[in-house]
C-alpha cells in the first residue's frame, strides 16, 4: 500500500521528523537520524556555524534528508522572518519551521506572531511549517496565510508528557486541510503511535530520542512506532466501546 505524505512538493515515505538539539555529539545525532529513517530534519539556525568545518552541524546531517531550518530564539515575527532569510541565504533550502517564543519560562509559542511570520515567509516562497499552540482559529489563519503544514505541540516542549492537547489536536486534524505534524511533548514511542492513530500526518521528536540512554535504538523504536501507528490509522481502528457487549442483550426477547 503506497502511503506517502507530500509537503512542499516533496514526497515523504517516513512520517517521523527529527530534531537535532540536545545530542551528546554530532556523531550520535547522525546515527540516530539514520536509524530513524527520517526524511525531514530540523536544525536551529542559531546553532549553525558556517565558519567552522568541524563544528558545523549541517555537515553531519545526511544528504538525502530535507533540511528544515527553524527560527529558534525568535521572540517576534520580525526576528523569525530575519532568521528565515538568513537560513535561506546560507544555502539551507526554502523549508522553514517557524518558532516564535516570547516566553522563556514554559517556552510556549506565540500564535499571533507566528501567523504574521507565516504570511510574510509564504509570500516569499518559503515552505512554511509553523510550530504553534493547538488552536483551531490560529491554525486556520496559518493555513490561510500559506502554511504548508501545521505543527501543534502535544505538550510543552521538552516535557515528555505525551499528547496532553489531544482534543484540540483531534479537532485540528479533522478540520485543517494541510498536513498536521504533532511537534513537542512526545516522550515515548507509544505516544508517537497514539498521535498517528489519531490521524496526525507526522510527528516531530527530539528530546525523547536525543536524551535517551541509547538514542540510536530509541530512534529506531520511534521509527517503528510511527509506522505502526500510521498503519493502525489506515487500517481503520474499531470504535472504542466503553462497556463490554452483553452476550444476552436486554432486548433479545423482541426477536
Amino acid at each position, binding site marked *: 500500500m503506497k502511503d506517502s505524505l507530500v509537503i512542499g512538493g516533496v514526497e515523504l515515505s517516513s512520517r517521523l521528523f527529527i530534531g537535532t*538539539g540536545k545530542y*551528546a555529539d554530532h556523531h550520535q545525532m547522525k546515527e540516530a537520524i539514520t536509524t530513524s529513517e527520517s526524511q525531514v530534519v530540523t536544525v536551529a539556525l*542559531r546553532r549553525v*556555524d558556517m565558519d567552522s568545518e568541524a563544528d558545523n552541524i549541517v555537515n553531519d546531517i545526511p544528504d538525502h534528508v530535507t533540511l528544515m531550518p527553524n527560527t529558534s530564539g525568535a*521572540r517576534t515575527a520580525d526576528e523569525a522572518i*530575519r*532568521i528565515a532569510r538568513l537560513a535561506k541565504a546560507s544555502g539551507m533550502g526554502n523549508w522553514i519551521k517557524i518558532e516564535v517564543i*516570547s516566553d522563556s519560562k514554559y517556552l510556549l509559542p506565540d500564535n499571533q506572531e507566528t501567523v504574521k511570520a507565516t504570511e510574510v515567509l509564504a509570500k516569499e516562497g518559503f515552505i512554511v511549517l509553523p510550530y504553534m499552540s493547538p488552536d483551531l482559529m490560529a491554525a486556520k489563519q496559518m493555513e490561510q496565510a500559506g502554511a504548508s503544514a501545521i505543527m501543534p505541540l502535544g505538550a510543552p516542549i521538552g516535557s515528555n508528557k505525551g499528547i496532553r492537547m489531544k482534543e484540540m489536536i483531534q479537532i485540528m486534524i479533522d478540520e485543517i486541510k494541510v498536513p498536521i505534524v504533532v511537534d513537542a511533548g512526545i516522550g515515548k514511542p507509544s505516544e508517537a503511535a497514539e498521535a498517528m492513530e489519531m490521524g496526525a500526518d507526522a510527528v516531530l521528536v527530539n*528530546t525523547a530520542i536525543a*536524551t535517551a540512554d541509547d538514542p540510536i535504538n530509541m530512534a529506531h523504536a520511534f521509527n517503528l512506532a510511527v509506522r505502526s501507528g500510521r498503519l493502525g490509522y489506515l487500517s481503520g481502528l474499531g470504535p472504542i466501546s466503553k462497556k463490554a457487549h452483553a452476550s444476552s442483550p436486554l432486548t433479545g426477547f423482541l426477536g
Partner: protein
Amino acid sequence: MSFYTKLKEINTLSFDELFENVTNRDVEKVLKKDRLSEQDFMTLLSPAAENYLEEMAQKSHEITTQHFGKTMQLFLPLYLSDYCVNTCKYCSFSVDNDFPRRRLSMEEIEQEAKIIADMGIKHIILLSGESRMHSSNAYLKESLKVLKKYFSSIGLEIQPLDTEEYQELVDHGIDGLTVYQEVYNEEIYAGIHTKGPKRDFKYRLDTPERGAFAGMRSVNIAALLGLDDWRKESFITGLHAAYLQDNYLETEVGVSFPRIRPNAGDFQPKVDVTDKNLVQALLASRLFLPRSGITISTRETPEFRDQLIPLGVTKMSAASSTVVGGYTEPDATQSQFEISDERSVKEVKELLLAKGYQPVMKDWHILS
C-alpha cells in the same frame, strides 16, 4: 516596579530560624514536587538538605538534561579596559589599587578577537572596570563594529547603565547583560563599596531589570559568594531571578555562583563557602528555576568544574584571561582576579565530549 520592594519583604524574615527549623521530612516532601515555591527553595538551601545532596543532584541532572539536552555552551570574557571609578574591597581593578591602567584600541580589540575566534569561540562577554568615561557607549559601539565580524553573541559586563543606553547597545548587537549584585545585604554592601557610583545599592539592584526592559535576550545575575551567609544570598539571588523571569518572559534569566578569588587587595572573604555549599546552592537553584541558564567560570579549579558538569550547569567559560589584552600578551599587567582553570578551549571541549556532553560554540546569530 522594582525587586527592591520584594527585597525589603525578604529582609523581614528570620533566616537563621527558618533554615534551622527545616526537617528531613520537609526536604523529602519538596523532592517529590515538580514546581517549587519560594518556601520549598528555602528548604533545599537549609542545613537539613545537606543530607539529600545526592537526591538533589540526580533530580537536577534529570531536569537539566530534559530542558537543555546533553550540551554545554562555551564562552570567553574579553576585557576591554581596567579603568574604574569605584572602590570595591575584593576587586583588583578597584580605583585605590595603583597599577598602570589600560584600554584597548580598536586594533588591539581586533587582535584579541582574532585569537579568541581562532579557538573556535563564538560567544563572548565584554568586560571592563566601571568607568563611564573609558567604557562609554561610543567606545562600545565602535568595538561592536569590529567584534560582530568574529562573534555570534556578544554580552556585556560593565558599569550599570540607564535603560536608554542599554537599548542603544542592543540595537548595535549586544544581546546579553551580566551584572552581579555582589551582596544583597545592604549594610555589608555599603561597607565594601566605599567610593564611586557603585555605592548606589538600589541603582545596581535594578540594573538587570533595566537590561531586560531594554530588550536584552539574556540577563545573568549573581551574588559574590563569601560576602555574607551563602544560604541567604543564594535564596535572594534565586528570588531575584524568579522576579525577573516572571516580569520579563522574553528574557532568558541566568544565575552564576562566583566565589571570591584572591585579588590585589588584602580583602578576605567574610564567610567560607565550601565546595559542598556551592554544590547545594547550585542544585537548589536548578530545582527552583528549571529553565535558567547556570554558569560556572574558571574561578573554580579544573577538578571541581569537571564534577559540576552533570549537576545542572549549562554554560562554562574556558581558557579565560581576566587581563586587558591578555589573549595577545598572556603575561601582561593586572588581572581582575586569579583564575583556577587554565585549560585551553580544545582541552575543555575534549573533556566535555568524553563526559557525554556536546560543546555548543554557537547558540545565537546576531540579527542587527
